[in-house]
């Protein structure tokens, strides 16, 4: 049989490929060079192709990163960057370089990201890490403070800041740096979840398994625990679901084996994680539900509601607070048995002191219940939950714990009722939803179809206790009407702040979208709303200024730019836009001043240079043809804004691709305008290959004017050679169109020449034969126009004979 097997290889001559040949075993540098070569040589890739290839290279980088091959990852990120520099690629590259301990390169990359996006949190964090490693503590602190300005809740930044401060104080640099560095890295990765575009997800997922292993051994360290849990929570959450089933036992074997498939030997570990994951994560994942446990303000990143709270819960007597925090620590490290007496002591103390603070007591009971639940002591757990619920009816965690306890005790009806109650309070708790489904099934098995009748009544939750995820802004005050302490207010404020941030971001994105669609009025509205939420974000002002410019509201544009410049005195965009505004207001001198400043900051801004020339001319002419200039202005700004958005979020481009895929041709055509922004630069083709490349690009974008440029600079006599055997219907058509629409008006002689030599090209006859009626008419029209514009360069007889060649 084997001798029959054949494997053949064909090198296909007909196909033409984008990139030049490259040897496969190449070093990092070589790759970069070649890719630069490609882009610089300008085998004109359209923007879409660039995005496509850059994204793919980045994905490859993410995959390599996931498999732990950081050198390779850096290579691919570098490729991605050389094709299309994006902040995300730089950021990922920096992360890989941190892994390789290549601090200098990482620093450079972080800086590039920050050039593009001055407030990129991850880049700031990474740069801080690098500075920390380079023992430049001051700079690291500066970066971390910047992070905290943007995200006051960032737990990683807070922790690192503390560490660095400590280091600075101790003045013992170098001590244990290694360990610390590692910790930071881990968190960094986990932290990146969801925040950056899809690519980074791969990173997170790929790492997760190994990271957990790294994380686990050090968990004992109290300082570490917090931050990690916040980040790792989501993953542990799901795992928790699995192993809880095991705890509870028998009848769910099947499910748990399924979900436990991955765990295998890691079971012990994951159980440990589970405790923590549950203690905080179980409910925290939907943040609304934190409140009962947290008479504490630890909403932020779910960073251990049990633990973090202790310090803040002022309403507890100090001794009880201390006991509670001890209990929390023990709970976190999995020592549930030892946590119980701590909580008990705290409870006794609180009762003996006789302070009536039902919510704190309720939390203590609830925490103890959690310990009991973990120990499998379900009846005590139920008791504690009952007590907690007496003190604080309809608080979420005790209810949920009681439900789980009931479920473990196989008292499904009670469990069902409790889960249902939980769902009334907050319908978004996945665990409760799942359990309800599961229990429903069990109950149907047990009691038959009339199972509902045997249920105890489900209490109706008063509306005041119901949580709604979406307007959770003021839920805290609703849940705890009894204790409107200061802490609550603080918590509420924080909530509001975060909501506001989120709203701010969506508004901004909407605004950007409107700008892209050219709906400047709506965009202005959105940006204005943004500014109500946050008056300090310069980009909003500059963006709004841009919209005002488009709407010819120069005065408003100027004001916005002024505002930005008050905050940031060297914002280049603001200067540029103010210059345009001044220009619109016809105060050319001011405009020139601003443009000069722009060029002072960055001498490479072409637009500014051009604008400057133009305005200087205008100054001397005394303001002629203003309207004309405005026309031009608009065009230029479009270009700028598009690149601007590229920086702002790769996500958009990804979406672009998606819509492109799923929508049909029409949508593709809609995209064309955005593509025309980057005009194809045409240089004279020297050989058939170059020519083919350009023609393909022209053809792909259906850019008639570019094609006209190409035909103008191409010698008609060379046309048959340059076309070789690549003449196709589409190319033929675009030639005809651009000849008719662009060149005929300027130089009918050239049109004739081109038509003449086109007919000499290979495959001309074939193409002609395949033309549709409509297309034939286009050719006919071109000839008609030629006849009308006849001049000395060709005679009517010649034209007639050529017509015959074209079978007209």
């Amino acid at each position, binding site marked *: *049989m084997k001798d*029959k*097997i*054949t*494997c*053949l*290889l*064909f*090198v*296909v001559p*007909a*196909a*033409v*490929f*984008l*990139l030049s*040949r*490259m040897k*496969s075993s190449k070093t990092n540098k070589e790759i970069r060079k*070649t890719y630069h070569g490609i882009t610089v040589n300008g085998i004109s890739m359209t923007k879409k*192709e660039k995005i*496509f*290839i850059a994204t*793919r290279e980045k*994905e*490859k980088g993410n*995959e*390599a990163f*996931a*498999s*732990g*091959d950081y050198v*390779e990852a850096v290579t*691919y990120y570098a490729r991605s960057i050389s094709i299309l520099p994006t902040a995300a690629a730089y950021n990922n590259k920096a992360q890989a370089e941190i892994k390789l301990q290549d601090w200098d390169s990482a620093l450079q990359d972080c800086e590039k990201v920050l050039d593009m996006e001055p407030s990129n949190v991850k880049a700031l964090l990474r740069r801080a890490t690098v500075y920390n490693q380079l023992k430049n503590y001051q700079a690291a602190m500066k970066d971390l403070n910047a992070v905290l300005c943007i995200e006051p809740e960032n737990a990683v930044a807070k922790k690192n800041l503390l560490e660095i401060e400590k280091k600075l104080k101790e003045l013992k640099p170098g001590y244990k740096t290694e360990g610390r560095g590692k910790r930071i890295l881990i968190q960094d990765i986990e932290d990146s979840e969801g925040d950056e575009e*899809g690519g980074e*997800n*791969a990173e997170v*997922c790929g790492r997760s398994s*190994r990271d957990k*292993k790294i994380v686990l051994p050090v968990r004992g360290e109290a300082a570490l625990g917090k931050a990690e849990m916040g980040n790792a929570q989501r993953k542990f959450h*799901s795992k928790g679901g*699995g192993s809880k*089933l095991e705890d509870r036992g028998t009848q769910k074997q099947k*499910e748990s084996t*399924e*979900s436990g498939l*991955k765990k295998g030997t890691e079971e012990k570990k994951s159980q440990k994680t589970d405790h923590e994951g549950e203690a905080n994560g179980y409910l925290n994942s939907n943040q609304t539900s934190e409140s009962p446990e947290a008479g504490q303000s630890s909403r932020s990143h779910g960073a251990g509601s049990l633990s973090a709270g202790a310090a803040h819960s002022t309403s507890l007597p100090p001794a009880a607070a201390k006991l509670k925090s001890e209990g929390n620590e023990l709970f976190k490290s999995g020592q549930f048995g030892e946590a119980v007496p701590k909580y008990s002591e705290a409870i006794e103390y609180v009762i003996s002191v006789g302070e009536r603070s039902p919510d704190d007591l309720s939390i203590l009971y609830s925490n103890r219940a959690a310990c009991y639940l973990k120990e499998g002591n379900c009846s005590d757990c139920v008791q504690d939950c009952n007590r907690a619920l007496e003190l604080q009816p309809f608080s979420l965690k005790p209810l949920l714990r009681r439900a789980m306890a009931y479920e473990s005790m196989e008292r499904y009806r009670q469990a069902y009722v409790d889960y249902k109650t939980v769902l009334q309070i907050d319908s978004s708790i*996945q*665990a409760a939803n*799942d359990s309800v*489904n599961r229990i429903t099934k069990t109950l149907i098995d047990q009691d038959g179809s009339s199972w509902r009748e045997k249920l105890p009544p489900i209490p109706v939750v008063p509306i005041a206790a119901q949580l709604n995820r979406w307007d959770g802004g003021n839920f805290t005050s609703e849940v705890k009407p009894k204790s409107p302490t200061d802490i609550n207010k603080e918590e509420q404020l924080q909530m509001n702040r975060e909501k506001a941030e989120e709203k701010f971001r969506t508004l901004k994105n909407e605004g950007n979208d409107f700008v892209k669609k050219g709906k400047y009025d709506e965009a202005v509205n959105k940006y204005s709303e943004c500014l109500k939420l946050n008056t300090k974000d310069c980009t909003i002002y500059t963006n709004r200024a841009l919209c005002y410019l488009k709407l010819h509201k120069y005065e408003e544009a100027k004001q916005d730019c002024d505002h930005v410049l008050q905050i940031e005195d060297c914002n280049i965009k603001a200067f540029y836009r103010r210059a345009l505004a001044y220009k619109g207001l016809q105060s050319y001198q001011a405009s020139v001043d601003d443009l000069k400043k722009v060029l002072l900051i960055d001498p490479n801004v072409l637009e500014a240079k051009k604008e400057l020339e133009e305005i200087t001319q205008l100054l001397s002419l005394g303001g002629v043809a203003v309207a004309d200039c405005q026309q031009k202005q608009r065009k230029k700004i479009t270009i700028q804004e598009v690149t601007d958005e590229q920086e702002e979020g790769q996500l958009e481009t990804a979406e672009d*691709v*998606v819509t*492109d*895929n799923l*929508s*049909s041709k029409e949508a593709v055509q809609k995209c064309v305008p955005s593509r025309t922004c980057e005009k194809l630069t045409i240089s004279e083709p020297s050989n058939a290959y170059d020519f083919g490349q350009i023609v*393909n690009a022209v053809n*792909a974008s259906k850019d008639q004017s570019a094609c006209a440029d190409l035909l103008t600079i191409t010698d008609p006599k060379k046309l048959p050679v340059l076309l070789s055997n690549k003449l196709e219907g589409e190319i033929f058509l675009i030639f005809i169109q651009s000849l008719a629409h662009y060149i005929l008006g300027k130089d009918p002689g050239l049109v004739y020449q081109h038509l003449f030599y086109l007919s000499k090209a290979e495959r001309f006859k074939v193409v002609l034969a*395949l033309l549709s009626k409509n297309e034939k008419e286009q050719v006919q029209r071109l000839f008609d126009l030629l006849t009308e514009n006849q001049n000395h360069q060709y005679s009517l007889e010649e034209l007639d004979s050529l017509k015959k060649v074209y079978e007209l």
Partner: protein
Amino acid sequence: MSAAGLERPQVVVHAQQSLNYTVFDCKWVPRSARLLCLGSAPRGTGVLQLYELRGGRLLLLSEIEKAKPIKCATFGAASLQQRHLATGDFAGSLSIWNLEAPEIPVYSVKGHKEIINSIDGVGGLGIGEGAPEIVTGSRDGNAYNQEERVVCAGYDNGDIKLFDLRTMSLRWETNIKNGVCSVEFDRKDVNMNKLVATSLEGKFHVFDMRTQHPTKGFASVSEKAHKSTIWQVRHLPQNRDVFMTSGGAGSLHLWKYEYPAQRSKKDSEGAEMGVAGSVSLLQNVTLSTQPISSLDWSPDKKGLCVCGAFDQTVRVLIVTKLNKV
């Protein structure tokens, strides 16, 4: 369903279309929502159909009949702009088609005396860096091409051979004791990373291709998946560590490869040898009673995939939550 169950990727049938011919292969047209189905009509001619996904249905855009049944196709060697399709047919001819003008092939050559069972290409779509190259395999040969310019072929006696095209030599061979149905590299445009080979009796092997030991070759892990032949394996283009296998009983299994902590180690003589990771099942689903013979992930939209089965049906599937695995 437990909480963990919902966290896993789900495989959902998005659209299905029954056909009046036997479908051998289906392929997404790059950068579009269109797909190609090709196979053999009852009277022994070849059929090539172009469908478009529109509003949850497959809309037939065009259909072409050819003299010989078409067994396999690839866009691997086509550029983004041209998107020419390369096919292999029952007569052993390789043809390249311009789908805009499918009447005559752009290029055609008779490479084999008998059926072409598999085809693959590189150089197009920006994959790899070189001239477009297409490789075909006949009579149970499976051949795939990759950036290091190697071709891997699987044989019905269980042999897997890796040919180096630069030196035109055999670089590595092994035997998996069972007829090989399908082999695929996890990515064509990186240095060899992993190779998956599936077998007649329901096992598949994942080879870590990074480290080649002078005597032991490549490290591998094997998994018994389906109770029947595994017809196809396809890696997710957006994440090389996730792949789907299609079984003879109409089932699809989604897998994830997890790397070991260290991908290579030194043996007693100090030579580098690879360490295989582990494979975990993410999801399985049974779609048909007949074998699923072809499978293709959309190169553009993560999680979108099409499969053709011997019950003369093509199905468009959506695999969810792939960014969380």
